């Protein structure tokens, strides 16, 4: 059921084809495969505390215990690394077999102390697995049910054609965020991102319940997901078009957030295979293992992932970083395919971050956006707005956003993050969001078919720039393939940041799988699909 419910638009590329070196594209894909393959082997041999907690959540374990520590964390701690290395499912299954109670109760008993891990050690694996089987089936059924709901809603309440207008709400209070989300939807937003508080990505647990505080956003919690999802479902009915919801997975809890997002029918998740490593100093092994399982869950629940290439551009020069962005897109694509994500669910990122005062900067942006469009024709590309060069001059900023909007509609991007004229000042006000949506709607309407009307001069600035970026990307991937991805990151090849393989946050939560390791959901989700998809790109 590979995301046919999404129509990232059978994009008409006929119009504005740039001549690019197809051989370089295929070579880059092959390189990405070579780069990711060894990481996959590492992933296959490891798990993390967050992966295991996600498994528990899918089995219905939720809630918090003493001083607000989430039950999944308490169970994990109670079992300890040793036992977790065989998989949390095995222990919960044993508990079910032993007590006949549901996994949630088993978890409670374990924490409460009325049930001891020692006693469960005796339960034979076979019995544990058998006992857990119905709950595993139940968990998968819930994911599939949410996905079916989305499919039905999308069929009945079709979205307006892409670029899909995406705005953030970030008041720091989930209830104000809900108000903001509804207003934005009415104004024409098709995707709402609820921004989480600074620092959440460094928490090794998922906060619980509705939250009304945070800086630059409020927490990503299952309750907050539900509050906004329900509000958006209502407004979707009222507007006659389905309004999507998204949040962030990246961080120390990628698998758990992927699980809760699936349960609350989020439609997209920020989920990058390297962002946490490079931009949050999260341990690379932890991130690689976490992103894989979280993406398997995304795949099954029909959630479109959004990758974070824009981050390369906010910290360094956008013109220089263009090849790195493309290289990262190839790597993200490969990791995604291996987790079973079809192209239609891979929202590769890019951003409009070239210095607005650079002559012909707009042509460079066109070149890069069109290049991505041609190299990833079926991917719902995620196009980020100008941010770094936005200043307190909201009038100039509004214009830079307009040129970004024009680039997006002309190159047929799919997921369009609306730029805010107040980007340099504050998280968006309700009025800012309206102005930014109106900006996109005006520009995209008045220039709707520009992309179908024009062709680029052969050998002109635009075409030469595209060639140059592609060549640079290939060279970069060759270097990485030689060194190996982990060594490359240690050496600071990406975004000029060096991260030691065994340093960074969350390394302690990486588990080597014991031979008897068992993760029933991974089993269920590693259908032939994953394989077949890597196949797809080969062809």
């Amino acid at each position: 059921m590979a995301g046919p419910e999404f129509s990232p638009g059978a994009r008409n590329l006929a119009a504005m084809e740039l001549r690019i070196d197809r051989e370089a594209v295929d070579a880059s894909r092959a390189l990405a495969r070579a780069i990711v393959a060894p990481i996959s082997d590492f992933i296959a041999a490891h798990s993390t505390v967050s992966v295991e907690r996600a498994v528990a959540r899918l089995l219905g374990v939720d809630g918090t215990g003493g001083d607000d520590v989430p039950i999944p964390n308490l169970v994990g701690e109670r079992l300890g690394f040793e036992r977790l290395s065989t998989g949390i499912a095995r222990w919960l299954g044993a508990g079910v077999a032993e007590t006949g109670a549901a996994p949630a109760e088993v978890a409670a008993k374990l924490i409460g102390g009325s049930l001891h891990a020692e006693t469960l050690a005796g339960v034979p694996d076979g019995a544990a697995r058998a006992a857990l089987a119905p709950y595993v089936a139940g968990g998968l059924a819930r994911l599939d049910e949410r996905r079916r709901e989305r499919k039905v809603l999308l069929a009945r309440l079709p979205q307006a054609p892409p670029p899909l207008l995406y705005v953030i709400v970030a008041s720091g209070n989930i209830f104000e965020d809900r108000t903001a989300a509804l207003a934005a939807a009415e104004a024409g937003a098709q995707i709402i991102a609820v921004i989480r508080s600074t620092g959440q990505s460094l928490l090794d647990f998922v906060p619980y319940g509705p939250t009304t505080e945070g800086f630059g956003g409020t927490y990503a919690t299952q309750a907050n997901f539900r509050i906004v999802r329900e509000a958006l479902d209502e407004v979707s009915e009222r507007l006659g078009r389905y309004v999507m919801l998204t949040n962030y997975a990246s961080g120390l809890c990628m698998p758990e957030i992927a699980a809760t997002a699936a349960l609350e029918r989020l439609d997209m998740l920020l989920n990058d295979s390297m962002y946490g490593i490079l931009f949050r100093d999260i341990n690379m092994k932890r991130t690689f293992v976490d992103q894989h399982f979280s993406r398997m869950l995304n795949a099954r629940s029909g959630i479109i992932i959004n990758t974070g290439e824009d981050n390369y551009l906010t910290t360094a020069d956008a013109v220089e970083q263009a090849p790195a962005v493309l290289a990262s897109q190839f790597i993200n694509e490969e990791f995604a395919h291996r987790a079973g994500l079809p192209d239609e669910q891979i929202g590769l990122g890019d951003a409009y971050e070239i210095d607005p005062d650079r002559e012909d900067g707009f042509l460079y942006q066109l070149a890069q956006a069109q290049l991505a469009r041609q190299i990833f024709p079926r991917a719902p590309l995620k196009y980020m707005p100008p941010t770094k060069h936005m200043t307190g001059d909201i009038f100039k900023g509004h214009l830079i956003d307009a040129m970004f909007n024009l680039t997006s509609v002309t190159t047929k991007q799919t997921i369009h993050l609306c730029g805010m004229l107040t980007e340099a000042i504050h998280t968006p006000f309700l009025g800012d969001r309206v102005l930014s949506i109106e900006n996109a709607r005006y520009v995209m309407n008045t220039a709707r078919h520009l992309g179908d009307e024009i062709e680029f001069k052969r050998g002109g600035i635009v075409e030469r720039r595209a060639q140059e970026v592609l060549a640079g990307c290939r060279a970069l991937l060759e270097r990485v393939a030689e060194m190996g991805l982990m060594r490359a990151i240690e050496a600071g090849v990406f975004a000029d940041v060096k991260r030691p393989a065994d340093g960074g946050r969350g390394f302690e939560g990486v588990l080597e799988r014991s031979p008897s390791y068992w993760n029933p959901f991974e089993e269920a989700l590693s259908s032939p699909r994953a394989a077949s998809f890597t196949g797809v790109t080969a062809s």
Partner: protein
Amino acid sequence: MSRVVKPYGDTLGDGKVQLSFTLPIDWSEAADEAARQLVAKMGFVDVAVAEGRRVASGFSFFVVYASSPTGVDVDAIGAPTAKAHVLSMEDVDGLIRERVGRKVSVAGACIGTDAHTVGIDAILNMKGYKGDYGLERYKEFVTYNLGSQIAVEDLVRFVKVNAIDAVLASQVVTQKGSDVTNFTALAELLEAEGLRERVILIAGGPRVTNLLANELGYDAGFGRGTLPSDVAAFIAQRMAEHSAA
């Protein structure tokens, strides 16, 4: 009952407002601070100068965000509109036929040196505005469109000679209060000529509000986005009342 509201940024009651202005001083960090203090003196709090820069020798431009402690009671505001509950063209003609019993004569002009006729034309011409037919299209109106740059004297003479029922004056240029000056001149001359009581006097233009028009002694005022039918309905109903009385 009263409901006081303040500007809304991202939280109810935060009072957030955006301002921009030019100061006749050269830019410097001190200029930013001057802008901050100025906005604070205006009564705002949490004043943040988001942008301050030189725009020309002796001039600096600023973009400021700040919170206003001021609120307004929205329930204390009577709807300041002359727009009668909407009537269809047929209803208007019907109303005039029954209650007035004769055709109603309407004269419109863009007065003074103002040549912006698009607005008054939108109200009077057959074609109308935004799909809403103009007064010329109504059976029961006899419409005269005197056009642009009509001296107040000429308009009043025309009203007298043709025993006009409703006088429509348009002013689009508002610089230095030219609109108010001309509107006032018209009202006073009609008064002086003893015609004021006999006519329905209506002002219109992008800056006109019903409140302003009333202050200037007009029966009604219509502003941005007025539709001909709004005006037709108002005239018909006033005429009906007059005849009733």
